[in-house]
């Protein structure tokens, strides 16, 4: 699929789909894109589309996409549409995607559309809004106008431009100044189509100053036809806000996902996020954080456990634009079968960003000769008074440790399971939502243990 004609026709198919649905997308200025603040509304989608057309579908010639072949992942063909209204019928097993004992505000997105039939938001503190992005365009156009499209970079990222051109629905969360959301939000993104769909949810999460919240977003597979999800998430973390997000990906091995997140931090805020990939066909996560004021704290955690032919590509950027911030990044992976993993983590410290402490580490265990890992940690520092470190290691389970356990009577599998558990434990122990931690703990055990 790297053939230029094939690429061109792929791009043309998106443009054609756009034209075919132009009327629906315009919809008299009530859609989310029409609430974007920085451009004349009706023209914006077309601008974004044109930008996509200029940038093209990312190919492997582009250094940033060297290991993840998007044209190939798209080759099978996916129907591009702005998504029909969500169907109320879901296979009963969607409930398997819930977490037992989790008391949360439940948001269900089916094929990228907010499903009021399945969501259970429950009572919310004064002023808090949790709904679909499309609804938000009507109920909180002010928030959309202030934040939507402010952080995600559709000017240079082709898939973000594509998402912006088609954006219609997704998760919307707004937590006003000084409000603490006690219960976590559990947002399920369920690809459940009976045709091959190209899905483009657009999420906006806004936490004003001193707000506190925890959000779990999970892309959970229900079999069905293969899908390709191109999701874009924008997160605003206001002054002294404390925000914890989790992205859990287990869409199933027929489903591909590109998830692009842009988080923007104001002064003295804390943003912690964990990206956990359990399966999928091709999974690419672009995580960008901009602590754009002093005294910010940023924690990026990752755990990827692919098996089979799953490809997981994590690309992160922490852009330290302002002084006196701390960032800490730890990504751990275990690759089995023919799985492949990529970690490309960049920490950027701008010239005026003095007294930055930035740590980054990636550790991967490769269980099988056929599994491959590419790790590229990058530090780019233009300030002189900084403390930064980075490192990446890829290896096998320590044979000495395995032998020690087996010499005490444990089977090879049991010993492997115990060591992998210990390895993943560094990430698992940082998960503050107990039912989520338990589910993942169980997944780690089930994947490699007894």
């Amino acid at each position: 699929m790297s053939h230029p004609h094939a690429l061109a026709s792929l791009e043309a198919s998106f443009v054609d789909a756009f034209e075919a649905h132009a009327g629906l997308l315009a919809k008299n200025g009530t859609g989310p894109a029409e609430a974007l603040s920085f451009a004349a509304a009706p023209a914006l989608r077309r601008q974004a589309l044109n930008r996509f057309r200029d940038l093209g579908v990312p190919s492997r010639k582009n250094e940033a996409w060297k290991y993840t072949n998007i044209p190939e992942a798209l080759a099978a063909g996916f129907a591009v549409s702005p998504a029909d209204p969500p169907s109320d019928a879901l296979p009963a097993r969607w409930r398997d995607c819930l977490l037992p004992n989790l008391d949360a505000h439940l948001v269900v997105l089916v094929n990228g559309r907010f499903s009021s039939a399945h969501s259970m938001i429950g009572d919310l503190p004064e002023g808090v809004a949790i709904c679909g992005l499309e609804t938000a365009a009507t109920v909180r156009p002010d928030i959309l106008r202030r934040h939507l499209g402010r952080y995600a970079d559709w000017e240079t990222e082709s898939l973000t431009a594509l998402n912006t051109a088609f954006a219609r629905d997704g998760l919307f969360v707004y937590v006003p100044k000084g409000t603490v959301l006690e219960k976590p939000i559990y947002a399920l993104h369920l690809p459940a189509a009976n045709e091959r769909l190209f899905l483009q949810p657009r999420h906006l999460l806004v936490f004003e100053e001193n707000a506190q919240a925890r959000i779990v977003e999970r892309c959970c597979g229900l079999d069905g036809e293969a899908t390709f999800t191109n999701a874009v998430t924008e997160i605003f973390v206001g002054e002294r806000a404390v925000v914890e997000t989790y992205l859990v990906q287990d869409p199933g091995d027929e489903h591909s996902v590109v998830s692009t997140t842009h988080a923007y931090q104001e002064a003295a805020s804390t943003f912690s996020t964990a990206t956990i990939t359990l399966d999928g066909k091709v999974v690419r996560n672009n995580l960008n954080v901009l602590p754009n004021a002093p005294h910010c704290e940023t924690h990026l955690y990752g755990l990827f456990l692919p098996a089979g032919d799953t490809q997981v590509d994590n690309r992160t950027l922490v852009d330290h634009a302002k002084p006196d911030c701390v960032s800490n990044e730890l990504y751990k992976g275990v690759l089995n079968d023919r799985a492949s993993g990529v970690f490309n983590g960049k920490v950027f410290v701008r010239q005026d960003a003095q007294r930055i402490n930035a740590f980054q580490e990636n550790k991967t265990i490769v269980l099988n000769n056929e599994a491959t890992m590419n790790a590229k940690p990058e530090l780019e520092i233009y300030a002189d008074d900084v403390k930064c470190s980075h490192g990446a290691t890829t290896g096998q389970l320590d044979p000495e440790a395995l032998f020690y356990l087996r010499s005490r009577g444990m089977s090879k599998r049991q010993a492997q399971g115990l060591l992998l558990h210990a390895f993943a434990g560094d990430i698992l122990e940082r998960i503050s939502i107990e039912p989520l931690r338990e589910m993942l703990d169980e997944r780690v055990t089930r994947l490699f243990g007894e």
Partner: protein
Amino acid sequence: MALLEINNLHARIEEQNILKGVDLTVGAGEVHAIMGPNGSGKSTFAAVLAGREEFEVTDGDVLYEGNDLLDMEPDERALEGVFLAFQYPVELPGVSMNNFLRQALNQQREHRGEEPLPAGAFLKRMRECAALVSLDPQLMSRSVNDGFSGGEKKRNEIFQLAMLEPRLAILDETDSGLDIDALRIVADGVNALRRSDRSFVVITHYQRLLNYIVPDVVHVMADGRIVRSGDKSLALELEEKGYDWIREEAVAA
């Protein structure tokens, strides 16, 4: 029938021959000491008995309770009652002592057709065995050997021995790096674990451990072979004359 019967054992790693024909017979309840200079193959010998796969056995055979030991996986050997106290115990960050021991012990119990030990009984057992070698019970909630002092690591090996109740315990330089007080604690622990149906192979570089753990037989290993065997007085003789004496004999032989 002897518990352990080793004939003409040869083993190598990469292209290097390390064991060059070891013969050894250990009866039930006996304590055998193996002494010898550094690099003579003592740890290799212990590792081959425990099933370390990096070493390739090129000749000879090992019968354990009449069965071919070399044919068993390391965990099978452990389940059949072979225990190795490591010269360099491995650190396992993130694996708690508690979980490690529970899994190991329950594997052994399952193998014997017993139910897993209930939590209360397990804790009680753990406390008793820890007391045997004065191991701080606080260590049970820590990761295995992670950040343990040298002495704690060695005592942890004997503690595990006490928990798992093997029939053949191989102690690889459990005494090295211990001060005299710690040495006594370890030796007292081992002595308390001596039984008529439990044999010990005690590998040591120095004679002093054998003042406390009194062996039935002393063997001297040099250049991958047992070059001399005798009673406990052989250890004293070695202490006096040094290993050069043996080495010269080995070369002359």
